[in-house]
């Protein structure tokens, strides 16, 4: 899987964000070597669309979210937002574009400055951009708090530690919304919350998306959470994209062996259902500093062949809005004839 290639990208005016061949490298401590946290990943998000990005810990999901914001700037590749190339901007112009892309983080409490009151936290983005008079800012902050379901009079003068995780996440979302962004990057926004609160925050995100016409990049490690909220789902493994598709296709007929493995790993409250094959789930994630040759998933893939070690698979179309980067994808109903099997390997 290693999905390089850009065949899954769409063209047209309704694409809000187009990240192409993005590479993010980090220097390794005590060596000249560099880790490729994100390696040649391309993705796009349409206006008003929610893209779910899933993968296990350390596969580079959050890194790509930050790369879109240019925090840090990607080492290679392009990030096109609303017709502007973000990687070419710097200084004040970049800061001006960043405010159109806002981010919600995993840890609700440490997303908020513990020494500031909620009113100050929410007004700070507006003050940075000298938006309106202090009175107008105050009104906008109070209105936004109400929209995310918090009572302004009980919230404005309190500090973050006086709120629960779910409330903190609502405040974080409100801080994003005061700037009226076009794209919201949600980096595992519900992973640290109780299940009941998770649903509330997910519903809130859906409401906000509809209300403000937002596009969402929803990063998560939980396929079940992503399924309901996403218009499109992208699966990542070890800094590469494996499979992109509409959730109904991807969840019912996964083409990539890794997607299949992830889906079968979702625990179901049904004791009669057989547990996933132990062989399938075995094996650690290889180090991104020393990734396997060819397809990066081959060390854990049941369908791996010699070809997978030699050649990196490229993203290709399986059907309408369903792309996979695999030499031997699982047969899907969409392209029954073209489905290759490991025995008959297409060159």
């Amino acid at each position, binding site marked *: 899987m290693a999905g390089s290639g850009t065949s899954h990208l769409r063209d047209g005016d309704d694409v809000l964000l187009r990240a192409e061949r993005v590479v993010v490298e980090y220097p390794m401590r005590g060596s000249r070597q560099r880790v490729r946290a994100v390696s040649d990943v391309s993705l796009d998000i349409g206006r008003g669309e929610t893209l779910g990005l899933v993968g296990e810990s350390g596969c580079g999901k959050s890194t790509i979210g*930050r790369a879109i*914001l240019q*925090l840090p700037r990607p080492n290679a590749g392009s990030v096109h937002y609303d017709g502007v190339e973000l990687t070419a901007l710097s200084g004040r112009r970049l*800061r*001006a574009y*960043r*405010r159109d*892309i*806002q*981010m919600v*983080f*995993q*840890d609700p409490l*440490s*997303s*908020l*400055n*513990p*020494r*500031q009151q909620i009113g100050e*936290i929410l007004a*700070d*983005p507006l003050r*940075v*951009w000298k938006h309106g008079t202090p009175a107008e800012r105050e009104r906008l902050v109070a209105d936004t708090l109400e929209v995310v379901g918090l009572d302004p009079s009980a919230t404005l003068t309190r*500090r*973050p*530690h006086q709120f629960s995780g779910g409330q903190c996440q609502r405040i*974080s979302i409100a*801080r*994003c919304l005061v*700037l009226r962004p076009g794209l919201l990057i949600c980096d595992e926004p519900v992973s640290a919350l109780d299940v009941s609160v998770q649903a509330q925050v997910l519903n809130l995100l859906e409401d906000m998306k509809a209300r403000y016409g937002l596009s969402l990049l929803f990063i998560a490690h939980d396929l079940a959470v992503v399924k309901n909220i996403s218009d499109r789902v992208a699966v990542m493994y070890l800094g590469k994209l494996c499979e992109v598709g509409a959730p109904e296709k991807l969840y019912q007929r996964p083409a990539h062996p890794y997607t299949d493995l992830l889906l079968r790993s979702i625990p179901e409250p049904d004791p009669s259902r057989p547990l996933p094959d132990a062989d399938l789930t075995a094996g650690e994630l290889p180090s991104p500093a020393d990734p396997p040759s060819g397809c990066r998933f081959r060390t854990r893939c049941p369908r791996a062949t010699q070809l997978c070690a030699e050649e990196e698979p490229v993203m290709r179309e399986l059907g309408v809005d369903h792309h996979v980067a695999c030499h031997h994808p699982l047969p899907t109903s969409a392209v029954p004839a073209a489905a290759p099997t490991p025995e008959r390997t297409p060159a």
Partner: protein
Amino acid sequence: MSTDVLPTTRPAGASAGKPRTYTLRARRPYGLWIASAWVLLLVGCAVAADVLPLADPAKPVGRARQVPFHSLAPDQILGTDTYGRSVLSRVIFGARTDLLVTLCACAFGAVLGCLLGLLAGFVKGWADRAVSFLIDTLLALPPIILLIAIATILRPSTWTLTFGLTLLTVPAFARLERGAALSWAERPFVLAARSYGASGLRIAFRQILPNSLLTVITFVPTVIAGLIVAEGSLGFLGLGIPPPAASWGTMIADGRASLRIAPHEVLVPAAVVFLTVLALNTLGEKVRDRLEIRSRTG
């Protein structure tokens, strides 16, 4: 607060009688109270020295080298020194000099050190290397030699002393602030501030400094305690506040000659220094304990 224990886990002996209750009570912080009282008393005396019924610390009030309590007159209760000056009056006016010099040095050092530390911890890279080099250089010089050099080059005065002591505190504050800034800069709220377009300066002073300052402030009593000791050593070497002004260090130095016949001349200021340093260190430690718990939840 009492807690009912589940019946199954109740010890056999306790099951017959009334349910066991557990009391959660914090130990009363007597140490903290005593330390605060001493520091408050000292600061109060130093501030009100002019209004208190005290003799002029530079003028004799009676016969030389009177032992403490030979007379209960307020000026002579702690005895007199070699020149017949009141020891009590000199200790209190000495407290004024000492506290003023150490507080100023601490404040200057804290401002300078925090700015350097913030620069190093937030900007990183070249700034961190430059600041770390400066700190290491300052730390490599033995403090007493540094102070002697400063006192020799510049004329000994209150300001020279303050300048020398400031140089001593800068590395400590810079390191504290650097470490705190490094860890706070990693928090998501800093990333959020970047993503809504806040400038680096705004992030440093509005997001990072207010948080990291808490760590730094808790070390202020400890630093002042160290400075009082440093002032004492300098005064002892004759490089402190020039006479006839009183400071604890110069009092100890002046009393050295008559240590055998009038030990109180040295012992009284030495005891005051000891108690003050102890009180400040206790205070610093307790404040740190409390704030640590709070910063974990907040």
